[in-house]
Structures are given as structure tokens and as C-alpha cells.
């Protein structure tokens, strides 16, 4: 979706400290050139295919469809990307752009760690230095991802300021970029931030929707009737929705309802009047903020949806009514995750389980001949600890205790050799 000079309706724009002006202009021009350069596009497609495994399948879910007795349910399998999430589509695109601009280092913010791991993977492959900013709370919640980032050679910096989550990581990444812009690129993981990041990330993610177009025509001879995607920053939703904007396709975005609708308990920015327009972190969008314009804490069981702002593209499409916005509560999300596991043998990320939960509510009431596609943006292996806890699995603590005892013994035994 082309922006109007960086704006989508009244959202977007470029509100950055003056120190970043030249770097931002450089990205703006480099992206404009690259997207019109067949060599760049060919390299992008080649890397998507041979490194990340694209195209990802469009999977029909027979058992779920029978279970609900309504719409025919399909999943777009972004969980099968290298790194296990749609994040890979964007990092490949931006990292190739970094090489093109002649920069040698990438900085990224990460919430759940998926974007951090994806960035660390591509940085390793392309020989780029890599620094990942991650809220100190998220470092604790998602340690397995931190472990992999470090193993991949990235420097992981826990951010202990503020709420110690994604938005603080984003602030800190911007601060790094303010001093390192000459050799570093800020590799934003979602369709947020100053222009041209929302447009650029949406461009790289649109491969999702483009593939769904081809695959739906091939599998059932027409486009789907409805699309579902979870909305954190908004990149997987932008990816599957935008190619269908001019088609007769309904689109539903699902935000994190968290534990309840009180401020601080959820991440619902685009419906039910909970968010309001603000200008921060480089762009104008709907934020969760108080009456004095201070951004507020958010919550979701899925760290990747736990963000105070949202893509200006999503904010605009929601405002003009082109997409419908709804939300799913933490417990509904765990139920949806569980249902997909049992019915289809697929382990969804908790982020993506929001899209499932939203679709499962509608599916029984939709006509049998209608077809819906849910964007399964990531796989759930990474969530094993949180899902076990949410499902009140009684044997997991025993495993952890035994494993820890064994681990410590192993470390003690090997200390002499080190």
C-alpha cells in the first residue's frame, strides 16, 4: 500500500530527532531504488525461497471445519518459515538493503524474541554485526530465544528502563541508531516507526498475501471470503491483508485482550475506544496512553502482541472501516491453541492463536460454502514454558526441577575442564 508522503490518512509520518534525518533519507532513497531494481527483487525472491523455504503452504483444515460446521478453514503457514515465523520475510528484505547501502551493522528491537532471532540469523548469514535490544522482562520470559541470538553471534542488550518490554527496547534501539547511524541500520521488525519503515516492512511482508492469492485460485478457484490475522505491531496482518485491499474480501484483525479491558491489562488499541491518537516513537498512530499523553503499560500472554502502539497502516484501515478489529482474551487464546494442536497436529504461536481464537468465534456462523484463511504467523515451540503454565500442566515443574539438578551437576563436573 503506497503511503501519501509517509502518511496513511492521518497516521504515519516521520517524527524523529534531527540527528536521524540523513540516515532516514538514505533508507527512503535506497528502498525506492531497490524495489524497482529487478536484480534486487530477484535476490530477494531467491533468498525467500532457498533460505526461508517460501512459498509457505496454504493448508486446508478438514477436522476444524467439521468441528465448527461453518466456513471452510484454511491456514497460511508462515510458521514454516526459517526461524518459525513471518518475521523472516522482512529481515531478509531489509538485510539485503543494508548490504546494498554498504552498512555493516544492524540494530533491532524485539519483544517475544522472534524478530531478534530472525535478525540474528540473517546477520550471521550475510556477515553483519548485530545488536538486539530486548526489554529485561522479555529477556526473562523468552530466554530460549535469547540463548539462540547469542549463539548466532548477536549482542543482546536487556533494557531495564521503563516497563522493560518491547516499547522500551524500541526507544533504546532508536538511541543506539542516533549515535551509530553512519555504519548501522535500524532493522525494525514491524510496520511501525518513521517513514518509510511501515511501507517498507509491509512491502516485504506482502509476499504472504500474494501467495494466498495464487494458492487460493489454484486450490479452490477463487479468493477467500475472509482473512484473519493477529495484530501486534501489525506486520503479519499487513502482509496478508494488503494484496487483497481492492478485492471483495473481508478482513479481521485480532488484538490481545489480555486479562481484561482495564488500562494495563490488554493491548487493544484499535477497537472499543481504548486507544487514542498520539505521536511517539517516530510516527502518529493509535496508542494506549493516559489523559496527559504518557504511554501506558500493556499486557498479553503473547509477548509479540504486547505493544503500546500499532502500525499506522492498520490504524488507517480500521478507521476507514476497511478492516474489522476484534480481540481475544488470554484464556480464549490458550483454548484456540489447544484446539489446533488436537484437531490438526499443528503447534501455533500464542500470537497467532489470537487470530485462531477470533476466527473460531465466527466460523460456526459463516455459510458452509464460504472460505476463511487464518494467517498462522508463527509456530509455538518457543512458547512451551508459557503454554505449559497456562494449561496448568502438573508434570512440567517436576521436569524442570530434574533438568535443573542434572544441568547443575553437569556444570560442576565440567568446571575442572574449562
Amino acid at each position, binding site marked *: 500500500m503506497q503511503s501519501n508522503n509517509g502518511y496513511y490518512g492521518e497516521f504515519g509520518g516521520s*517524527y*524523529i*530527532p534531527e540527528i536521524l*534525518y540523513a540516515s532516514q533519507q538514505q533508507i527512503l532513497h535506497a528502498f525506492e531504488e531497490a524495489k524497482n531494481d529487478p536484480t534486487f527483487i530477484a535476490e530477494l525472491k531467491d533468498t525467500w525461497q532457498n533460505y526461508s523455504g517460501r512459498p509457505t503452504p496454504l493448508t486446508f483444515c478438514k477436522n476444524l471445519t467439521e468441528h465448527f460446521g461453518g466456513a471452510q478453514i484454511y491456514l497460511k503457514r508462515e510458521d514454516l518459515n526459517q526461524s518459525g515465523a513471518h518475521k523472516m520475510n522482512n529481515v531478509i528484505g531489509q538485510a539485503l538493503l543494508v548490504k546494498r547501502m554498504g552498512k555493516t551493522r544492524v540494530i533491532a528491537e524485539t519483544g517475544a524474541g522472534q524478530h531478534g532471532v530472525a535478525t540474528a540469523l540473517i546477520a550471521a548469514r550475510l556477515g553483519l554485526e548485530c545488536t538486539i535490544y530486548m526489554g529485561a522482562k522479555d529477556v526473562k520470559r523468552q530466554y530460549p530465544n535469547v540463548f539462540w541470538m547469542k549463539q548466532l553471534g548477536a549482542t543482546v542488550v536487556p533494557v531495564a528502563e*521503563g516497563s522493560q518490554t518491547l516499547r522500551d527496547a524500541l526507544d533504546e534501539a532508536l538511541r543506539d541508531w542516533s*549515535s551509530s547511524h553512519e555504519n548501522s541500520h535500524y532493522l525494525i521488525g514491524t510496520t511501525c516507526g518513521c517513514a518509510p519503515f511501515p511501507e517498507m516492512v509491509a512491502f516485504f511482508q506482502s509476499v504472504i498475501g500474494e501467495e494466498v492469492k495464487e494458492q487460493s485460485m489454484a486450490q479452490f478457484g477463487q479468493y477467500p471470503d475472509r482473512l484473519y490475522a493477529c495484530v501486534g505491531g501489525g506486520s503479519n496482518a499487513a502482509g496478508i491483508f494488503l494484496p487483497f485491499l481492492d478485492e471483495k474480501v473481508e478482513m479481521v484483525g485480532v488484538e490481545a485482550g489480555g486479562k481484561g479491558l482495564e488500562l494495563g491489562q490488554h493491548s487493544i488499541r484499535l477497537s472499543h475506544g481504548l486507544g487514542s491518537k498520539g505521536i511517539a*516513537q517516530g510516527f502518529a498512530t493509535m496508542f494506549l*496512553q493516559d489523559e496527559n499523553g504518557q*504511554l501506558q503499560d500493556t499486557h498479553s500472554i503473547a509477548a509479540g502482541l504486547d505493544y503500546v502502539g500499532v502500525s499506522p497502516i492498520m490504524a488507517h484501515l480500521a478507521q476507514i472501516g476497511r478492516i474489522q478489529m476484534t480481540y481475544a482474551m488470554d484464556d480464549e487464546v490458550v483454548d484456540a491453541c489447544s484446539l489446533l494442536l488436537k484437531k490438526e497436529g499443528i503447534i501455533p504461536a500464542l500470537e497467532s492463536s489470537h487470530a485462531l481464537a477470533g476466527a473460531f468465534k465466527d466460523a460456526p456462523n459463516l455459510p458452509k460454502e464460504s472460505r476463511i484463511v487464518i494467517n498462522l504467523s508463527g509456530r509455538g515451540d518457543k512458547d512451551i514454558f508459557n503454554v505449559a503454565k497456562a494449561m496448568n500442566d502438573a508434570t512440567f515443574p517436576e521436569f524442570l526441577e530434574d533438568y535443573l539438578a542434572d544441568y547443575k551437576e553437569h556444570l560442576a563436573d565440567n568446571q575442572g575442564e574449562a
Partner: protein
Amino acid sequence: MSKLANYIAEKRQQKPILSMTHVVYGYPTVQESLDWMATLLEAGADFIEVQFPFSDPVADGPTIVAACHGALHDQKLTVEQCLTDIGKLGRDFPNSRIALMSYLNPMYIYGLEKLVKRCAEENILGLILPDLPYEQAGELRAYCDGNGIDPVWLVTPVTPKDRLAFLASEARGFLYCVARSGVTGNSKHNGGTQQSLDEYLAEINSHANAPIGVGFGIREKAHVDALKGKADVAIIGSALLDAYNKGGKEEGLKLFNSLFNS
């Protein structure tokens, strides 16, 4: 001519360089921050740059970030009360001036038109909003022009030459020259300068229609002395806050006096 620029020009007749000291409103409490501002004004600070805290201050380093978060931690700060408080302070110290610094969002939520009107009423003549670039500030500029308030533009050592010339020519009250890359204060995110500060300031001086203030990285008397004859105002922020955090008003005042009164 700009009231702010006039004030600077007149004061510069008596002093080789003016002082602008930065204080975070509400840190550690509203009253303590106002007392600290009054102390600096009594000691002869020509300007106070009052920062209204924002939850996500992306252009600031750890010292100021911590103060902003501290100020917001267990009290609700309003722009309205801040303007009233610092307006009164300005009237108590008529030989000095107060500039308001913040990030765009709290000001946007308060209302830009109301903000500028209230600033005019309280004699807050300069507005510094580091995340509002010139191009995005059309609305604010119009309100400011109608009320005799000056939005303060920032330039940096990496601002392209043609843009630097443009921003310098657009400056009214004063032009805020960032002395180095990075964020405010001592931080791991500090870049060096590519060119010497002298060359940078000479380039700016050749275009500027307004007085020049220099900030970022000013911590010692030598830094202030080096600006004499090349700039009009030395802006001191994080170093002063570091001193204040270390030993309260006494330590802060010691630093201020060593930089400007010795």
C-alpha cells in the same frame, strides 16, 4: 524581531556566553524541581530549559531518561500545572528566561494551539520539541508566529549542508546546535564529531539569522570557554543532573558556578 533573540543579544553585551541550565519538571518532586530551578536562577542562570517528562524520551540518554521515568512514577504531571508553575518562576526572576522542552506527544494531547497561547501568557518564549522536525511542524509554526513564541530547531554535525543552511536561516529565538551524535548525557550511545566543533559552528554562523546555543556533551569549564566568541548560549543538561543526583542542589550549584561564575 524575536523577543527571545532580543533578550539574548542584549544580555550578550554584558557576557561572553550565556548559560542555559536544564531541569526536569517534577523530578524528584514538583516542589523540589521548582526549588532547584529557583536556586539556579538566583545563581545567575540566564535560561532554564524546563523538560516536561514523557514516558518515551528517545533523544535522551540514561541520566535524563531515569529522571523522566522517576518524575512520572507515582505522580500525575499536567502540562497546564507545569506552565503555571514555571510562568510564576519566570515572573520571580525577570532577568532570566524560561524555555519549555518536551516530546511532541504530551504537547499534542494538551493541544498545540492552547500550548502556544498559554506559553505566551506565561512568557515562555521558546519551545524545544526534539521529535518534531521542521517539515512536520507547519501547524505549530503558524500558532507560534501569531503569538510571538519561537520554536527552536535543532541542527547536528550530520545535518546535510543545504538543510543546515535552511534550518539556520529559519531560526528565530535561537538555533540549538547539537555538538555531537548520539543522545544526551554520558551514554554508550555517543558518537564522536566528524569535524571540529569550530568548523561546524563557523558553518552555522555563516547561515544563522538568530543566536546560537550549543548543547550535548558540555560538562567542564573548558567546554564552555571553547564556545566563547563562536556561540551565544551554552546548554548544560545531563552533567548538571548527574551532579544534582550525586549531591543535591549544593553539588549542582558547585558545577554551575565552576562553569559560569569563575
